[in-house]
């Protein structure tokens, strides 16, 4: 408890400097296993589609006993163990319409019996027919087209705003997020309704939003990366994750609180319904959305950037310097607009580094490329 409180206080004061990005393999294994479990779940268990997707049965009964409300009829049918998708009054309450999941003949007869008793009519008066799905394939098709266009557009935007690798890794984080949420649905067997699809799309925007906030900080921290040797790309990214950690925690809490309200009311008070569907998918998606920005997209970005020759060379320089002069001092990174103010000693140091690297690293680029290419695969494995 003490540790937990201490940890919270550290976070609250923004003093946290966890070396999260040193455990990248661990995060990959974790993300990969989640993805595999999800895909297996989707492939083996499959989705539990709601009536809006799979169609169902419709019962149509005349009302001879107006004192019975449509809600009462609904709960009477639900007590028989049948899921009711909608219960409506038709023509100012002259008839009640109930749409349920697909039922077999026995169940259908049972429901008609219930309706006839409740509404004071005969079984023959209660009509039953099959209804198709109301969620058209064209809606799904257009949604998929829109999604693809969106992913392309957002990649182009991120590429233009930041860089190509950030675009790739944020999309990777997003896909992981969607797969995991879908997997949870398949495995737990929650019903997939239009509300769920809407929730999935909300997550999509939310997850990217989250990643952009983290990457914005990474971008800022590493803008002057190559002009100093105090910290590497990984250190800059790690710092960014630390700096945005409290924001991520805060945003997740603030985002999840209303969703928790929806979930509580939707599932606890009202039973099944749109609210529950939406709240569930959002709850799962938002939780994992924060995770994938910090622990999947960012580690992926670090490893992709580490393959770049310039970054590799820089890493080596930073390692050499840190080995020669080990210190536990946290890194302080001066961003662009700090350059004009002289409050920080760090800036002076950074300026020194720039001069140093400018003179001493001159001959290096030409001397190394061949050796580097051969080293790459081996070195990659050694790091684990």
């Amino acid at each position: 408890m003490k540790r937990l409180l201490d940890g919270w206080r550290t976070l609250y004061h923004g003093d946290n400097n966890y070396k999260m990005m040193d455990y990248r393999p661990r995060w990959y294994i974790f993300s990969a296993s989640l993805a595999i479990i999800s895909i297996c779940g989707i492939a083996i268990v499959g989705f539990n589609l709601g009536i809006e997707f799979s169609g169902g049965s419709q019962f149509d009964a005349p009302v001879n006993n107006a004192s019975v409300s449509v809600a009462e009829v609904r709960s009477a049918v639900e007590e028989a163990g049948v899921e009711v998708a909608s219960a409506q009054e038709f023509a100012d309450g002259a008839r009640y319409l109930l749409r349920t999941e697909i039922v077999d003949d026995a169940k259908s007869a049972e429901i008609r019996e219930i309706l006839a008793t409740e509404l004071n009519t005969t079984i023959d008066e209660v009509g039953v027919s099959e209804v198709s799905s109301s969620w058209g394939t064209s809606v799904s098709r257009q949604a998929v087209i829109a999604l693809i266009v969106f992913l392309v557009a957002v990649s182009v935007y991120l590429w233009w705003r930041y860089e190509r690798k950030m675009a790739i890794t944020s999309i990777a984080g997003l896909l992981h997020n969607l797969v995991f949420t879908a997997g949870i649905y398949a495995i737990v067997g929650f019903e997939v309704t239009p509300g769920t699809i809407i929730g999935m799309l909300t997550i999509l925007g939310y997850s990217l939003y989250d990643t952009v906030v983290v990457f914005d900080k990474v971008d800022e921290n590493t803008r002057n990366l190559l002009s100093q040797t105090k910290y590497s790309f990984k250190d800059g990214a790690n710092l960014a994750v630390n700096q945005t950690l409290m924001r991520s925690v805060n945003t997740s809490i603030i985002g999840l609180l209303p969703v928790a309200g929806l979930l509580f009311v939707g599932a606890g008070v009202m039973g099944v319904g749109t609210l529950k569907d939406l709240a569930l998918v959002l709850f799962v998606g938002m939780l994992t959305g924060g995770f994938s920005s910090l622990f999947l997209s960012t580690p992926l970005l670090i490893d992709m950037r580490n393959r770049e020759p310039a970054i590799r060379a820089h890493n080596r320089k930073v390692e050499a310097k840190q080995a020669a002069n080990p210190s536990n001092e946290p890194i302080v990174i001066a961003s662009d607009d700090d350059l004009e103010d002289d409050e920080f000693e760090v800036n002076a140091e950074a300026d020194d580094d720039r001069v140093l690297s400018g003179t001493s690293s001159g001959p290096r680029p030409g001397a190394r490329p061949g050796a580097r290419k051969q080293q790459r695969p081996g070195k990659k494995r050694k790091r684990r």
Partner: protein
Amino acid sequence: MPYFIVLGVVTCLLWLSAFAGVDFKHFPTPKLGLDLQGGMSMTLSAEMPDGGTPDAASMEQARQIIEDRVNGTGVAEPEIYVEGTSNIVVNVAGQESDADELREVGAPAELRFRQVLSGPVPDYTMQDPEDFANLPEEEPSTEPSDDPDADPSEEIDASPSPDGEEPSGDASESPDAGETPAEDEIEDPADADPSLEDAREAVRAEIDPQTWSMAEAFIASGQPIAPEELPSYMEVFAEFGELTPDQVAALSLEMQLMIPTIGCGQLNARAPGSISAMEQQVVACDRATPEQIAAAAEAGQSPFAKYLLAESTVEGQDVASAAIQQDSTNPRNWAVGLSFTGAGQDRWIALAQQAQGSQVAVVLDNVVVTAPTIQPGAASGGSVEITGQFTADEARLLAEQLKYGSLPLAFKVETIDKVSATLGLGQMQAGLLAGAIGVALVVLYCLAYYRFLGIIVILSLVVSGALVYPAVAMLGQQIGFTLTLAGIAGLIVAIGITADSFVVFFERLKDEMKEGRSPRSAVPRAWVRARRTIMSANTVSILASIILYFLAIGAVKGFAFTLGLSTIMDIVVVFLFTHPVVSWMSRRGRILSSARLSGLYAGTAIGSRPSSAVTVKES
């Protein structure tokens, strides 16, 4: 200060337009969706010529076309499904007054392109199509079309009027009208359908034999009606004006076209699909806008005209796309651009070549939507422009009908009735309760975490709410945006997304102050950086909502709308309210300087763990 003025103006404008939308009569409320408020339900049943059951694939195809069409009219999130084997149910949100609208957008139609063989022949009757529209089929009509008989003098005055919509001169001058009744040219639908012969015999039995033979003689003579003879013709053939639409449908084409007492009210009310057979010639009427109807009524004329139309070679399914565009020769007018599918294009070119210089009618169900003259260029390619004195609305309607008019089956509107909400107000109250709980939790958390700044978060959320509510209400009135339960949930979730902007800003502020800056210098620095992050992240959301809005349909479109709306409001609030308030506070009060009040930890105030020492210069 100027920020607050802009914010005030924006808020006032939104509320004003929301109130203007309800004519300041009551408090503006959002238009609620089918699930919360209920609406209208229309049942369409497929009409098979042989009385059989349509196959499931055609029904699904028809369902999708109807869905596209209803969706094409806005973001109202309709619900459309196949019930049983031959019914399609269309549910839309809204109250009783929308029944006509539903009929218009939902009632499907079959589209045919037919060369005009003869016409326009003026409709001499004063039939009101409304009288026939709801007429039960089996019940013979007694009262409609009484006008010409009751007061023939009015007809005389009216007919020769040269300024009318359809001057009678048209008919007498038009060489087509005179030549038409050359017997060998016009087919008789009864040749193809023997049952029609029986029906015609039944009609013949109802009509006075003398009148019938006079009608036959009149048709055979091929004489156009001179204006001065019209009253006597109207009197002689009065019986034909009392036939039911279905009886009229059984008559020969010459009779339908030439007998002056057979009006467009009867012709338009024929059973759906009665002139959809492609291999038959048909008689159909054009249609008129309400303004044309009013103008014609004033002039004592019928706004309609009858056409004899050739066999159809191009049908709705041949149309690949139709869109409204500017008239290329007369940019002040609107036109409809059409393109055909591969096979459809060949058929269209054949039709256009054959009809060069004459008219081709676009027939939707029983009505000629438009009958443009084929210009020489029309036969050249797959993309065609239909021009006319279209207003933007007319052109849009025509484009929609052309695009979605390709139903594989003929449908009849079986019932239109009210339905209650699928979920009901109980669920909506639950949603609002959930929202209240959510907001309360967010408020508590913000107060605990950001202390005084938490109050700014709450005020910002209130401002955001004051902006979003009138926007949703106004859009409900203007473009039919309906708020479903999912939409309400989306708005509740947006609370979190809106609050995120503040969190980004405040966390930056905290960072800056931790580095030892005074609030006065920390706020502008934090704002510059936070603004960049907020804009980058919100750009992604806006991108998502724009793309989803324009490409997706149905519920997904509605979602995109909500997302875009709340993102834009988020930007408005954080730029025009949150930042100015914080900035003002940093200059005036001492609240931000106190860690206890602001929750902003200023470096040395509370002891921190030694391992996380930060290089801070004493300020």
